[in-house]
């Protein structure tokens, strides 16, 4: 009975599939029309719902996300494998955004009667869109395994564009106020990313980056330097960017520890905190007992050195032990640091921290004041932004040199097999300590700047959660690469900020995001060549490492 029923379902699905190629384009076209029309009609009967949902011919709010996903319907017309998966991801996300928005409108307005015609039309369109891809047979030419090589400049620009676009998306996400709209944004973004991933976009970008690394970095630097000139004297985005810079520098430092040497440091934010407190106590704030007013450059160096020293003191006894112990000890150190600064309020201001840290001053140059360069006025935050750029560039340089050096090779060996590394004559304890110390030093340096950017330091900025976020930035962005850490740091700033609206579920959502990413892209968004090899066994060997002409069996 059931078997017969299943049989019939299977055969009709089969039949639908075989008609699919014919049916799908019409379904998709109808879906597209309905979605475009629907998003231009009002979705709510009442005003006040975020995104001006009661207005016609004004697609804003979640309606924009729906429209942004609609072009994916065109995938039915392209014959290659995975178009079905990509199309399904996009249309399902579209459907999810519509349903989620309808629920939100009904909840705010007091029932489904308050949902207007536009929403229903779009819902119908979304359903037809999903049907179009469900009906699509899973065939077509496979995606190319290696993409054509384009001119260097074009390839580098593509990567720069991708990084800039992800930063812009993040910044936009920061700006979305209404929780319901933000959820819609996340759904649309998630679906869009999965679809693009299925189409091989990220693979392609990763390959481009690996091929055009130097040029990409130069272009990124150029884009970064010009950015303040586009801000018309406003400091808003520059403040965001300076914050991203601070954490990017710290994340790259953590990347040395975790990504290169493979050591798990769960208290990394404490080293950052050491730098911040050094700046507050001995910098021009003069908040310390000595009422010191060290010049800024001296403070950066002092913060870095003190932090590095603390790192070595903690690492030396621990790094002889197995890796797990280091994680536990660093976790403990993070807590001790937090408790210490909380308790010794004579120096640290206790739980209130130290506030009113003045703007940086180096000689007669005041970082808080706007300056005019080439006839363009740059807001005060541009100074911090540029300082951060220099710091990030410096840290990147250190990172790159280490990675390519003898030391870098030793770290890789230690990461893969510590006993074997030692049998090769690598002094494993020293190299681990070196990585740990360098990481702490870089964190300390960026911490000193952070104290001035934030104008205050307090114990609650240096808690375990922050270490986890930094670690997540490294893992998200891609272990062992620099742009990865920058994108990761931007996410680090944006996500917790945004998830405040769901404070009860904040960590849950963050965890989910991590799990999803690790499931679909374990090597991170912009992985290093080596990482990619580590995560993709089968294709890694022949695709990446075989030089032309070698006989790989």
């Amino acid at each position: 009975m059931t078997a017969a029923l299943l049989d019939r379902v299977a055969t009709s699905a089969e039949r639908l599939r075989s008609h699919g190629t014919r049916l799908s384009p019409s379904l998709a076209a109808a879906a597209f029309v309905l979605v475009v029309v629907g998003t231009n009609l009002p979705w709510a009967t009442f005003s006040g719902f975020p995104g001006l949902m009661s207005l016609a011919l004004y697609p804003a709010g979640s309606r924009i996300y729906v429209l942004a996903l609609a072009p994916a319907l065109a995938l039915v017309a392209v014959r290659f494998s995975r178009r079905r998966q990509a199309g399904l991801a996009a249309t399902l996300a579209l459907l999810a955004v519509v349903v989620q928005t309808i629920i939100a409108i009904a909840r705010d307005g007091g029932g489904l009667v308050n949902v207007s015609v536009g929403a229903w039309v779009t819902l119908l369109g979304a359903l037809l869109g999903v049907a179009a891809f469900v009906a699509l047979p899973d065939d077509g030419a496979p995606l190319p395994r290696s993409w054509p090589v384009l001119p260097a400049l074009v390839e580098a620009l593509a990567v720069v564009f991708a990084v800039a676009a992800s930063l812009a998306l993040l910044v936009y996400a920061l700006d979305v106020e209404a929780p319901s709209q933000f959820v819609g944004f996340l759904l649309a973004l998630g679906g869009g990313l999965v679809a693009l991933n299925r189409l091989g976009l990220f693979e392609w970008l990763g390959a481009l980056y690996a091929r055009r690394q130097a040029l990409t970095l130069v272009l990124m630097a150029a884009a970064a330097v010009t950015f303040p000139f586009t801000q018309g004297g406003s400091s808003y985005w520059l403040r965001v960017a300076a914050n991203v810079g601070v954490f990017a520098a710290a994340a790259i430092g953590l990347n040395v520890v975790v990504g290169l040497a493979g050591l798990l440091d769960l208290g990394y934010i404490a080293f950052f905190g050491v730098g911040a407190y050094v700046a507050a106590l001995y910098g021009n704030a003069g908040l310390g007992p000595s009422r010191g007013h060290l010049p800024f450059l001296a403070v950066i160096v002092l913060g870095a050195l003190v932090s590095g020293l603390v790192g070595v003191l903690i690492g030396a006894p621990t790094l002889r032990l197995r890796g797990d112990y280091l994680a536990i000890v660093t976790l403990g150190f993070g807590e001790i640091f937090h408790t210490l600064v909380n308790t010794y309020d004579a120096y640290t201001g206790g739980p209130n921290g130290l506030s009113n840290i003045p703007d940086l001053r180096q000689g007669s140059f005041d970082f808080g004041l706007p300056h005019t360069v080439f006839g363009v006025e740059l807001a005060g935050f541009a100074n911090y932004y540029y300082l951060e750029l220099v710091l990030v560039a410096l840290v990147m340089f250190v990172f790159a040199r280490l990675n390519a050096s003898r030391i870098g090779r030793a770290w890789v060996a230690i990461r893969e097999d510590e006993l074997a590394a030692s049998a090769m004559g690598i002094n494993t304890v020293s190299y681990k300590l070196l990585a740990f110390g360098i990481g702490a030093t870089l964190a300390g340096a960026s911490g000193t700047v952070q104290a001035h950017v934030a104008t205050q330091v307090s114990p609650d900025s240096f808690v375990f959660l922050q270490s986890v976020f930094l670690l997540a930035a490294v893992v998200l962005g891609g272990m062992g690469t620099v742009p990865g850490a920058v994108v990761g740091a931007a996410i680090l700033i944006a996500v917790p900020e945004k998830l405040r609206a769901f404070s009860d579920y904040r960590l849950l959502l963050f965890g989910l995001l991590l799990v999803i990413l690790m499931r679909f892209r374990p090597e991170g968004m912009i992985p290093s060549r080596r990482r990619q090899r580590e995560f993709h066994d089968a294709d890694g060997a022949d695709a990446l490492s075989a030089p032309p002409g070698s006989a790989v069996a």
Partner: protein
Amino acid sequence: MSLLEVRDLRVAYGAIEAIKGISLDVEEGQVVTLIGTNGAGKTTTLRTLSGLLRPVAGQVLFDGARLDKLKAHEIVARGVAHAPEGRRIFPLMTVEENLELGAYSRKGEAIAQDVAEVFERFPRLHERRAQKAGTLSGGEQQMLAIGRALMSRPRLLMLDEPSMGLSPIMIQLIFDTVAELKAAGTTILLVEQNASAALALADTGYVLETGRVVLTGTGPDLLTDENVRKAYLGED
């Protein structure tokens, strides 16, 4: 004076003594084998010699100088190479990168030439030089482990059960390699459970049982020894 002299060596894991005072000698140019059943203490001995474990008591002299207080990387730098049990190649590095790491203790010169030499000795590694080492077969991984150990240009090569888990053909190939190395004058300390093949090659053999040397002799002598035949060559 022997190249390697071990005097009354004792090694413990916590409170448990695994090596209860063993002495042995390796002459320059000789192949010396250490045989014994599982758990006899062979691996523990090699790891102590290469500085991965610290002895509780006893002395290790290499070329007349004490090794037992040195760290692993210092011992490699003095010319003792260790191809550990279970091969322990770096699985995610390419074959070539593995070999280059074998030369880590050396400074710069002539490394490419030595890599080429290893490839000449093991043509199968050459064919797979750009492949991830983890994708090699067991026998190929063992070749790589030996090749990697040779890259440090050792004066003493220590091999821990190179035939472990290999097919009969591969075992033959590995022992042929050891024989070739011996013919070329390499000093080798060979740990094996495959007693007959090891003793057939060895100038001297030591039989280890629960942390003690219970029998010593030349390879041919031990091969014909009645006790050895019973216990290790599966005859009764």
